[in-house]
């Protein structure tokens, strides 16, 4: 079976008054039906990776090198009709702010139906019944009535459900979710997470879930890739990352989650702030903030260790840890 996603040596720069090296040599692969959380802070390149996957970045200002394949299709070479068919058909996306992503002048039913008509070439009546079915599947109460509502008539949680229904209406193989629950309240967030988990099982699709919240990643995904300064610093199954994180950045993130921290105890905070990415990283990007940094870290890019299949750590520290085991 072909891999669902295969990104190889993706490097992405934004050109303009100043150059930003947003993604630096990222490789990532996913099997069919997997859920992967991309974990990282703002500016680590999580959202840019998703946008590159959908070809949503402004072509004039973006320089992309490397290869992205989804189900064997070379995404970077797509254009025109083929790109339109790919977006929403093969891969679709749920955004953070459903109020901005939905069109305010059309009813939600019509927006879902439009996408179904475009991709499947069915009649309007048929598309509307698919829309109704989708609203049912995302557990919107009295879906028949909600079909004719405008986005502003719905609450935040309901809008995010509509957004998910819209993204899944054409049965994509891969769903990209860009912090879909960050703007929601805690009690609504957990509902949406569980819904996504159920729908993922039901449709058997792959999901890439971008988040900065480790707890959310644990709830939704089987695998986690941690990003820092446009690179993947650690990858593994969720329990590997949670229980035996090896990269100092991942360890710092886990500590900053405050889960199980003694009240009033001093937090083991990572000092400093993420780098600005104006230059291509020549050494470990995390070294300036790392408590274990040595001259070796500042001299060259860290080696990538693979302690187990599909598990990797980009840190010199990971090597002695292996030998000790």
């Amino acid at each position, binding site marked *: 079976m072909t891999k669902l996603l295969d990104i190889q040596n993706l490097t992405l720069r934004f050109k303009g008054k100043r150059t930003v090296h947003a993604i630096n040599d990222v490789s990532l692969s996913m099997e069919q039906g997997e859920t992967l959380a991309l974990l990282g*802070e703002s500016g680590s390149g999580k959202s840019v990776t998703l946008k590159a996957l959908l070809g949503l970045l402004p072509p004039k200002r973006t320089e992309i090198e490397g290869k992205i394949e989804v189900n064997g299709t070379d995404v970077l070479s797509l254009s025109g009709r083929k790109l339109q068919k790919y977006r929403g058909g093969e891969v679709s996306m749920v955004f953070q702010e459903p109020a901005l992503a939905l069109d305010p002048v059309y009813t939600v039913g019509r927006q879902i139906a439009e996408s179904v008509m475009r991709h499947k070439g069915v009649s309007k009546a048929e598309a509307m019944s698919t829309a109704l079915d989708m609203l049912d599947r995302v557990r919107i109460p009295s879906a028949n009535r909600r079909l004719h509502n405008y986005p502003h008539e719905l609450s935040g949680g309901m809008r995010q459900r509509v957004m998910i229904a819209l993204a899944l209406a054409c049965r994509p193989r891969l769903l990209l979710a860009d912090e879909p629950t960050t703007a929601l309240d805690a009690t609504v*967030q957990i509902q949406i997470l569980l819904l996504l988990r159920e729908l993922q099982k039901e449709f058997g699709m792959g999901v890439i879930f971008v988040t900065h919240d480790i707890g959310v990643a644990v*709830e939704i995904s089987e695998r986690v890739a941690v990003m820092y300064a446009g690179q993947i610093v650690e990858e593994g199954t969720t329990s590997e990352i949670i229980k035996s994180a090896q990269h100092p950045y991942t360890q710092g993130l886990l500590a900053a989650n405050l889960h*199980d921290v003694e009240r009033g105890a001093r*937090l083991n905070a990572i000092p400093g*702030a993420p780098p600005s990415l104006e230059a291509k990283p020549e050494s470990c990007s995390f070294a300036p903030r790392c408590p274990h940094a040595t001259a070796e870290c500042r001299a060259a890019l860290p080696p990538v260790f693979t302690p187990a299949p599909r598990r990797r750590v980009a840190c010199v520290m990971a090597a002695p840890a292996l030998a000790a085991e």
Partner: protein
Amino acid sequence: MSATDLFPALKPKTAAPESRDKGGPAQPLVIVRDLQKHFPVRGGILGRTQAMVQAVDGVSFEVKKGETLGIVGESGCGKSTTARLLIGLIEKDKGEIIFDGQGLGDALSLKELRKDVQMVFQDSYASLNPRLTIEDSVAFGAKVQGLDDPNGRARSLMARVGLDPDRFAHRYPHELSGGQRQRVNIARALAMSPRLVVLDEAVSALDKSVEAQVLNLLSDLRREFGLTYIFISHDLNVVRYISDRILVMYLGEVVEVAPVDSIWREQAHPYTRSLFSAMPSMDPDNRTQEPPLAGDPPNPIDPPKGCRFHTRCRFASEVCKTRVPKLQGLPGNAEHLAACHLHDATSGHPKAGQGVPQ
């Protein structure tokens, strides 16, 4: 009889720092009683008031000297409105705010209150004037209040919050990162040497690694300056870490107040329990299976009658739809207050007096 007794004006004017404590250590720093704020919703061609948003409705609580009170709740529950009422940013409709024994409006003017109470907001960029340098921003309040040497104060506080004054004093807000800007906001709040600092989602917009730094800073400052905090957040882990007591709000009302350990052990109100179980699990082998609540919080324009939570509560009975539960101490733990008929043996709820069932 000495000369100073006859002529009080001859007494040396020493303003020792302790003299700011008027009520003594037992007097709570803040007492809020029956605070109420309703916002009108205008509409129609005449712009008449169509409805009222009951943002804060009958909120009462106390903050002791030197403690940190965490306020949690979902959006629209009135936590930010409460904070704004507390520092007089918006006018209250009803109720009393008593600061160290002095009622706001009678014994204490708004200007005097603001010497003692400062606030840090969520959006670090929007709350700084983009045309003022960092030093001017931090010194501004002290200048307005006529405190001595505002710029010297500003520079020493900048150093204290971890921003080198020589490097940062002449920068503008857009030249700083989010974490640095939030440090500026904290320095600005402290420039007035306040006694109470209200932190409204002050760390929510920061990245996790930076959030931990700011939390460490807040704990240090609290110890160093003997501050009292009101810490508003939607992140229960953060609130647990920093607070002594936690106050839970739902639709403009207080549903539970308790010391952190007590509420962490047992959530007495069904809403608090749902809120706690909505926290993502940190164990991949033991993920959440059932969402604790269905649907979104109701609209505060027309909140449910009786107990406002009854529309989403698993244990709701007839009495919950009609009678408003009173906030009262739990049997056996008077420090732990909850507003739920389940805990009131005389409420008429079929399961009254048995606590919240599992």
